[in-house]
């Protein structure tokens, strides 16, 4: 990792088999993302932003080129190594929250810490802290079905942030939320980014998200067509 660069992508290609041929979802992607960035992969549906996010999150592997995340080449990681990378350093926020329906809020947020085999006291302190960040202490015993969409996404943020990951990957985090909740969520994430210096990478085509980004990486048809820093002053 050079000069605080957490992610380095070079000549990245991703193909999916379709019939006898293949569909190229990502084509010659080159970019670097540094510590503490609040960046977004922006583009229309089918532009490849979720695919790129999945590769950065080591949930998928590139067909060609190199994706290096926290010094580890995604394409050459074993299943266990990539699970380890996700477990220790990456947090995920999904469009549909992906909370476990049979767990309450506290248990959902606690889950990543259980996977890290953390001691109970430490685990409970961290969950409490994460619930404070997202303002959901009073809902700790509620199940996801008892929460609003905005609250669910805040639980999802707490779950992603509780282990203090170095990178949080958010795939269309506001797609199921109304404007007010979207802004609440984004403000929460921006605050965490500033306070904890966690790198946030979004995949989105929602203008509400785009207006919060500090860096906008535009994709179209599997290529990076624009990469611009946005001055927030």
């Amino acid at each position, binding site marked *: 990792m050079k000069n605080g660069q957490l992610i380095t992508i070079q000549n990245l290609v991703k193909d999916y088999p379709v019939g006898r041929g293949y569909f190229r979802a990502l084509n010659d992607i080159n970019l670097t993302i540094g510590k503490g960035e609040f960046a977004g992969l922006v583009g229309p549906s089918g532009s490849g932003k979720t695919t790129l996010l999945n590769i950065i999150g080591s949930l998928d592997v590139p067909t060609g080129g190199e994706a290096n995340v926290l010094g580890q080449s995604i394409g050459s990681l074993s299943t266990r190594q990539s699970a380890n990378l996700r477990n220790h350093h990456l947090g995920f926020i999904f469009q549909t929250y992906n909370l476990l329906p049979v*767990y309450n809020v506290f248990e959902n947020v606690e*889950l990543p810490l259980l996977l890290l085999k953390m001691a109970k006291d430490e685990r409970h302190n961290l969950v409490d802290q994460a619930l404070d960040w997202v303002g959901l202490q009073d809902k700790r015993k509620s199940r996801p079905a008892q929460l609003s969409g905005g609250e669910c996404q805040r639980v999802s943020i707490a779950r992603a942030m509780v282990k203090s990951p170095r990178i949080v990957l958010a795939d269309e985090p506001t797609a199921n939320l109304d404007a007010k909740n979207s802004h609440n969520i984004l403000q929460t994430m921006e605050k965490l980014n500033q306070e904890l210096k966690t790198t946030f990478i979004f995949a989105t085509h929602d203008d509400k998200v785009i207006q919060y980004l500090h860096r906008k990486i535009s994709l179209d048809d599997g290529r990076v067509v624009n990469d611009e820093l946005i001055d927030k002053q």
Partner: protein
Amino acid sequence: MLAFKLAYRNLMGARLRTWLNVFVLSLSFVVIIWFKGVINGWDLQARRDTIDWQIGGGQYWQENYDPYDPFSIDDSHAPMSDAVLDAIKQEKLTPMLISQATMYPEGRIQSISLRGVNPDQKILELPTAYLVSENDEIPAIIGERTARNNKLTVGDYVTIRWRDVNGTFDADEVKIVHIFKTDVPPVDLGVVWIPLEKHQKMVQMPNEATILTSSKEAGFIGPIPDWEFKNHYFLLTEIREMIEVKSIGGSVYFVILMSLAMLAIFDTQVLSIFRRQKEIGTHIALGMTQGQVVTLFTVEGAMHSILAAILAAIYGIPLLAYQASVGWTMPAGTDDFGLAIAETIYPAYSLGLVVGSTLIVLITTTIVSYIPARRISKMNPTDAIRGKIQ
């Protein structure tokens, strides 16, 4: 350990779905253990009663004796040597003389096995003390099945006819002095017990016997010329085989019961894996390998049987304990096929039975849970996260 923790949390979270499966599985536990307990109880009772009433600590058979060959019965007798008589005096052996005869209750002809036995013997539980007689009458004791079948009661006289050692027919009346109740049909059905000495005189076989029954304490007292010792293993063969047949028959019920319970678990697993794709993808995104998720789902399925064992213990132990104390009353006539079976069977449970049954259910549940869970390892995590797998 983590898999157990998460699996427990998932199962508790699933509430009614979990408890329905657990209840069905617990029923299997209780019924399997109960049925096996009944078979065990029957086995124990049949062995104990057969030893007490019929075979003692083993039997010496006259070398020609074959209980299944009616043509050789009349030749299956031999004089008792001084050594045998000594053993009888020391109450290590009791002799029995067997011959074929016919009985004429109310003018009907009935084949019987006429058996002479020492009235003062203490080795078998047969109430032979009733055979002590000080007059010329021939006292006889019979079991209640024989009494019922021949409409005989205490005090009745009935004519019996036999052939002596020379093949000459003779007949006399015997007086029914006692009717005994036993769970061992071979000492009852078609058997008339009379004093040994009178029997020996009737068939002109003085000092002869067909079977020498050992006391439980003595057992095998050494080889006796012209006599073959038959141990418990041999003499209890029929009971053992019948119990085995009953156990195998019972296994059909276990298989049906277990299949129903396993189908419920299998269904739940398949449905879970289909419905919980997002959850599977989320677990992977949070840092689990697919193998760990397979383990989690397998443990989750298998844990049904652990919860079922706990539930079964909660309601099963009092239920089975009560049943073991009051027993299971058999329908009338159950023992007419000739095997020792009591009117009431008291199930016998052992630690081995409970642990063995629990292990069988646990292993089967684990296998049934693992089979559908393997599918997870073939899932694409990115599709699973979005719940896109069909």
